[in-house]
C-alpha cells in the first residue's frame, strides 16, 4: 500500500527554500519507501491492523479557504481560549483567535514559523522523535502540510489555554500535520487539542514534538472525537528537562481505527501524569501506546488509562516504563482498567516494566472485568434497581477520568459526550 501513497504524495510537492527541511523530507521519504506504514509484524503494532489505509487511498487534503464555520466547529471551540483552527491540515486564520498573546510568546502556523523563525524550527525538529520511530513518523516528516508552532518564553504563564482544533471536512483525504511546542524555563501553559470531522472516510495524522525546559509545566488535553469512519493517528513525543511537569489527559472516543502514542523522556526529578479514557462501540478499534523513559534519578510518573468497550469494539493498551540504571529513586505507577460491556468486545492490554536501577518504586496493574457486585449491592440498598445501578456505575467508571479535567468548559464538553453514551436520568451537570 505504501507504493500508492508514495506515488500520490510525490506528485504533491512541498516546496521549501530551507535546505535542512528539504533534507529531512527527502530522508523521511526514503525511509518511508523502505518501511511503509507499520504492520503487525512490528511489536509496537502487533494488535493494530492498518488495512484501512489500504482500502482507501487518502490523498493529501488541499487547502480550502472557503470553509465556513460549522455548527460542529462552534460547539467544540471553547470559550476563553486562544484558538488555532486547522481545516484539513491547513491553518485557517479567519477561524482562529490569537489576539492578546503575551509579548515574546510565539504562536503561529507551522508554515508561518518556517518563514518567520526557521532557525527555531530547525533547532527542535526531529529532536523528540525520529523518522525511525515508525513508518507513520517518516510519512509525517516527509509530507506534513502545516501545523502549529508554540513557544512560551521563560517564566511566562499563559493565562488562557491554547486550543488547537483539527477539522476534517473532505472525504477520502488525509490531513497530515506537525506541531512543535516549546516551553522555556519555568514557563507554564495549557494546551487543548481537539479532533473533529465530517461523517466520512478520512485520515488525520498529527505529530507533535513537545519540549519542556527546566521547571516548565504543561497541561495538555487531547479530545479525539473523530468520525467513526475515520483513521486517526496522533503522536505526542515529549522531552522533559529537569523538574518539568507534564500532565496529559487523553480522551479517545472517535475513529474507526484510532491510535495515540504518548512518549515522554523524563529529566531529573521531572514528572508526568498520563490519564486516558477510551470509549469504543460498534467496530471501533482504539489503540493507545505510552512510553515513559526514566533516564535520570528522582523522576515521577503516574499513569491511569481506563477503557469501556461495547459491541464489537476493540482496544489496545500498551504501556512501557523504562527505568535506566542511573534513574535511582524513580517513582512510577501505571494502571490500566477496562470494562467490557459486551461478549464481543475485546481488549489487548500489555503493561511493560523494564527496570535496570535497584532503588526504585514501581507499580503496575491491569484489570479487565465487569462491574463490582458489591457496589451494585450498595446501590440496591439505596433503593436503586440493578439495571439502573449498573448504568450508574458504568457512567461512573468513565466519569472518574472526566472529573480530573480542571478546565470547566472542557469538562462540560467531555461530560456531555460521556452522558450521550451512558445517559443518566435526572442528572445535573454541575453536580458531577
Amino acid at each position: 500500500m505504501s507504493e500508492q501513497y508514495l506515488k500520490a504524495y510525490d506528485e504533491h510537492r512541498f516546496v521549501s527554500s530551507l535546505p535542512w527541511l528539504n533534507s529531512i523530507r527527502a530522508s523521511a521519504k526514503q525511509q518511508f519507501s523502505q518501511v511503509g506504514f507499520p504492520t503487525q509484524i512490528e511489536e509496537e503494532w502487533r494488535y493494530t491492523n492498518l488495512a484501512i489505509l489500504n482500502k482507501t487511498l487518502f490523498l493529501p487534503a488541499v487547502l480550502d479557504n472557503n470553509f465556513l464555520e460549522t455548527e460542529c466547529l462552534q460547539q467544540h471551540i471553547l470559550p476563553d481560549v486562544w484558538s488555532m483552527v486547522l481545516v484539513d491540515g491547513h491553518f485557517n486564520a479567519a477561524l482562529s483567535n490569537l489576539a492578546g498573546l503575551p509579548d515574546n510568546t510565539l504562536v503561529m502556523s507551522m508554515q508561518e514559523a518556517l518563514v518567520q523563525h526557521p532557525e527555531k524550527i530547525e533547532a527542535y525538529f526531529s529532536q523528540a522523535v525520529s523518522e525511525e520511530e515508525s513508518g507513520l513518523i517518516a510519512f509525517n516528516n516527509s509530507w506534513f502540510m502545516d501545523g502549529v508552532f508554540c513557544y512560551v518564553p521563560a517564566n511566562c504563564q499563559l493565562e488562557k489555554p491554547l486550543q488547537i482544533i483539527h477539522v476534517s471536512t473532505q472525504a477520502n483525504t488525509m490531513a497530515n500535520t506537525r506541531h512543535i511546542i516549546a516551553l522555556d524555563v519555568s514557563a507554564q501553559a495549557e494546551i487543548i487539542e481537539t479532533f473533529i470531522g465530517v461523517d466520512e472516510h478520512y485520515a488525520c495524522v498529527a505529530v507533535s514534538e513537545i519540549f519542556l525546559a527546566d521547571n516548565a509545566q504543561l497541561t495538555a488535553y487531547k479530545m479525539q472525537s473523530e468520525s467513526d469512519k475515520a483513521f486517526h493517528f496522533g503522536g505526542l513525543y515529549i522531552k522533559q528537562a529537569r523538574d518539568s511537569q507534564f500532565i496529559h489527559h487523553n480522551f479517545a472516543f472517535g475513529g474507526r481505527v484510532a491510535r495515540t502514542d504518548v512518549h515522554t523522556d523524563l529529566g531529573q526529578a521531572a514528572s508526568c501524569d498520563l490519564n486516558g479514557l477510551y470509549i469504543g462501540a460498534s467496530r471501533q478499534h482504539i489503540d493507545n501506546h505510552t512510553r515513559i523513559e526514566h533516564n535520570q534519578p528522582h523522576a515521577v510518573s503516574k499513569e491511569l488509562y481506563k477503557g469501556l468497550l461495547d459491541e464489537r469494539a476493540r482496544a489496545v493498551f500498551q504501556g512501557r516504563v523504562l527505568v535506566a540504571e542511573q534513574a535511582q529513586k524513580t517513582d512510577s505507577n501505571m494502571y490500566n482498567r477496562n470494562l467490557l460491556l459486551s461478549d464481543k468486545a475485546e481488549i489487548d492490554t500489555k503493561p511493560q516494566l523494564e527496570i535496570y536501577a535497584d532503588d526504585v518504586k514501581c507499580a503496575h496493574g491491569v484489570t479487565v472485568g465487569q462491574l463490582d457486585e458489591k457496589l451494585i449491592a450498595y446501590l440496591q440498598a439505596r433503593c436503586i434497581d440493578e439495571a439502573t445501578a449498573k448504568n450508574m456505575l458504568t457512567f461512573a467508571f468513565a466519569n472518574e477520568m472526566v472529573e480530573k479535567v480542571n478546565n470547566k468548559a472542557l469538562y462540560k464538553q467531555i461530560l456531555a459526550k460521556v452522558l450521550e453514551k451512558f445517559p443518566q436520568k435526572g442528572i445535573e451537570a454541575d453536580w458531577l
Partner: protein
Amino acid sequence: MLSIKNLHVSVGDKAILKGINLTINAGEVHAIMGPNGAGKSTLSHVLSGKSGYTITEGSVTYKGQDLLALAPEIRAREGVFLAFQYPLEIPGVSNIYLLKAALNAMRQHQGLPEVDAMDFLTLVKDKIKLLEMDQSFLYRSVNEGFSGGEKKRNEILQAAILEPSLCVLDETDSGLDIDALKIVSAGVNSLRSADRAFLMITHYQRLLDYIKPDIVHVLADGKIVKSGGAELALELEEKGYNWVEEQAA
C-alpha cells in the same frame, strides 16, 4: 413493625443464626450487642437482602409483608434502611447524584412524582447541616477519600433524606472518635420518632451513652441469649460477654 421468628441462617454449610426471635414496634430503639462472630452483622445483612445467605428456617415479617421475599431495592423503598458497617466508595458518582437517584426511586415506588430540583436542594442542605457536613461533600464522589467518621455521617445523611421506617445501624460507632460519635448520634437521635424504629448493632456499650435504647439484646452464638432494658448494656460492660454466655449455657 418487624417480627423475626425462629430465624435460622447459614453461609454455605455453616449455621450462623440459630433461631432468632425479635419483635420491634414503631418508635422503639433496640440494641443488639454481642461478641465477635455472634452473628450480629449477618442479621443486618439478611434484613437488607444481601446475597450469599441461606435462610434455612423461620420468617421475617415487616409491616405485614414477608420481607425475605422482597428484592433488596424493594426493601429499601419500603423503608428498611441499612447503615453499612463499611460504607463503600463509589468514584465517579457524586453524593448528591446518589441521594437524588435514591430518593426518586423511593418516591416512584410510593407513587409520588420526582422531587422538585429546588425542593431537593433545600432538603439536602438542611440535612447536611444537621450532620455538620460541609456542602462540598455533596459534590464529591460517594465516600471517596472520606475519613471513617465522614463515611458514617454520610450513611446517616442518606437515612435522613430517605426517612426510612426501620433503620438498621450496623456497627455505626466502630472506629469513630468521640467527636464523630457525638455528631453521628445527634443525627440518629434527630431521626427518632414515634413511627420509626431502630435496630442498632454494636460491639461497644459506648454508643448507648449517646443513643439511649429501649431494649438491649445480647446475641451469642447465633441466638439472643438475654434481653433487658438500657441497664443491661452497663452490666455487660462491667461483666463482659462471658457472663451472659455462661448464664445461657
